[in-house]
């Protein structure tokens, strides 16, 4: 099998050990970094589709994502910053006052798996920290998560801070978490809402203008 085809297969298999080795070999035999990146992303797209139809599961998708990123690390030095942005850049975090991590981490990993350049700001992220991250990483999307009803107002505050900094028009805002509803998302002027980690990827791809992909049914 062609080494590029094998890279694709290893990503699909979630083989974190041998994907980077294969990428190294592909470089050695003369493939350029962009071609190799295409193989990695292509494998990950196949994983996304398998997951969408119910043939693969989140732990497997995330493991494939780790395999893909292991490969990306090898070719990173030969790529430009705009190359590694892939589908787009995302600044993600749990909002101020909220220390709940797992839902946000799941979305973060799923977005990475789908080929986004994700900057995870962790928990208890203030509006100013979101704003700074958008600037630094030229983010296309800000993704905010909350589990506590009491911390929901910080989502609105973050949007206000982005407006004041003159960044609101250049970035899409998506929100999620158990207490968040589509009505609430509309009321604070967010661009998108995802009810769970699974649908967040679909929403993010829509927000960066990717062709719409059906939600899981």
């Amino acid at each position, binding site marked *: 099998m062609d080494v590029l085809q094998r890279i694709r297969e290893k990503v699909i298999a979630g083989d974190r050990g041998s994907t980077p080795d294969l990428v190294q070999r592909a470089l050695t035999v003369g493939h350029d970094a962009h071609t190799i990146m295409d193989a990695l992303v292509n494998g990950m797209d196949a994983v996304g589709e398998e997951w969408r139809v119910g043939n693969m*599961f989140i*732990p497997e998708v*995330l493991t494939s994502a780790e395999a893909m990123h292991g490969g990306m690390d090898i070719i990173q030095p030969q790529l430009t910053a705009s190359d590694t942005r892939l589908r787009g850049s995302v600044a993600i975090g749990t909002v101020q006052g909220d220390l709940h991590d797992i839902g946000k*981490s799941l979305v973060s990993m799923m977005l990475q798996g789908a080929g986004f350049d994700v900057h995870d700001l962790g928990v208890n992220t203030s509006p100013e920290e979101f704003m700074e991250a958008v600037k630094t990483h030229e983010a296309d999307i800000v993704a905010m998560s909350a589990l506590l009803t009491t911390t929901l107002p910080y989502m609105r505050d973050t949007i206000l801070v982005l407006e004041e900094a003159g960044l609101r028009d250049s970035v899409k805002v998506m929100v999620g978490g158990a207490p968040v*509803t589509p009505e609430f998302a509309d009321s604070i002027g967010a661009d998108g809402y995802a*009810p769970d980690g699974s649908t967040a990827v679909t929403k993010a791809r829509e927000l960066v203008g990717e062709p719409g992909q059906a939600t899981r049914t």
Partner: protein
Amino acid sequence: MPEATVLKPSLRLLSDEGLQKIHAQSLEILQTLGVNINHRRSLEVLSDAGADVDMETTRVRFPNEVVEHCLKLVPGRVVYGAREPEHDLVAEVGGDFHTRPMTGGEGYIDLETREWRKVRTKDLIEWVTLADALKNVDYVASIYPDDMNLDTRDVHILRLMLEHSVKHIEVQPYTGAGVEYMVEMIKAVQGGTEEVKKRPLLSVLTSALAPLQFLPYALDILFTVGPLHIPIELNTMPIAGATAPMTLAGTLLQANVEMLVGITIAQTAFPGMPLMYAARNLILDAWTGLGLMGRVENTMVASGMAQIAAELYHMPSNMFGPVADSMVGDTQSAVERSFRALVPALCGANVIAGLGHVEHCYTYDPVLLVQDDDLIAMVRRLMRGIEVTDATLGMEAIKRVAPGGNYLTDEHTLNHFKTEYITPQAANRWVRNVWKSNASLTAADLAQERARKILGEHEVEPLDPKLLAELDTIAAAADKAAAEGSLTHAHGGGSIGSLVATYNKGK
């Protein structure tokens, strides 16, 4: 030593003392009161074996030693063959349970219109196809189309089931005479009697008539399948308060006497004959007069029966599982079916029967058959117990990940997320907004959709056309015999199950 790390869940509803009392009083009834057996050959073999037989009144009284001797001959292990050997099953005391759909009713809920009607031939094919496809339905059982010639219906049913399923087949014959033709069909499919004896792909149900009677057709069935050791699901259907004592213990006692009679006849005539202890119980509803099946007390009696079979007689049992009184697959149905499926499994039943029905065993519902596939998966998971090993404890994973961190892509998660948990095939697992955007489908909608999908996709390995022709020839011979009047309904005109159902219907 994986056994040592898992406690197989179990439950007992009868004490040792209670069991012994039931056994002792059963023997006393058999010896002193006796039972009526309206079947000449049975009376002859029982008389030869030392029973006290009155040929005039057909009353038979059993000396204890005759019964005890026969109990020693009952196998603790029953093999169910299947057209595809991978579906062969073994029902064994202490072993895992198997399942079959409901058999014996007359109504069918149409998959598309969801309207009730009498069963038709196309429903039989649909039902068998679903049962053949569903993973947690281990063998198939007959349903009874209204649009067939009643005299030879059993024979034609078996012919269709052989065509549409590769799993083991159980038929509840409505005539004694048709069974000969059924046996011929099985011999044709399995290529002779030796293979049938080794792994019979047919089993039959036959029943006592409570209280303490046996009808001729029921024993005709036994004597027809006996020489080939085709397994019998030995049944009785007493109604507490009507055809059995009102109490749980009294029902157990009388049903056990009826089981012991069936066992004694079978083992006297055909030593070593495979039998399933398959007593049922209904409860007279003191207000409507109906014989009910979905009550908690039904579950308790069935579970006690499973315990009697395993602990007193070391023979496998077949108990009603997800059986309910509700007219539709509603909450009542779900609650009753859950109780009835789970508790007998915990009490050691080897077959959980009666999947996919509503209305106390009178009506089949293909949607519920699909839902019961999920219910049985849950019961199976529970019966697997909690496996405690170094691998499942995952201490190394905890050390790798915690404090903080997450397990999403840890190898321990990858190794166990599929095997440790079961995934229901027709259940909602969404948040509300996603659920609403998917048309707010209920569990029943999902099961209906799954049924449609299975019916559209499932393929059964076809029978050799020559063999099919042979089966058709056998069925035609049965039709000819019926037309000539040499194949007739035996006394009773049907199985006890249908008598009970008719009795309910008339109320």
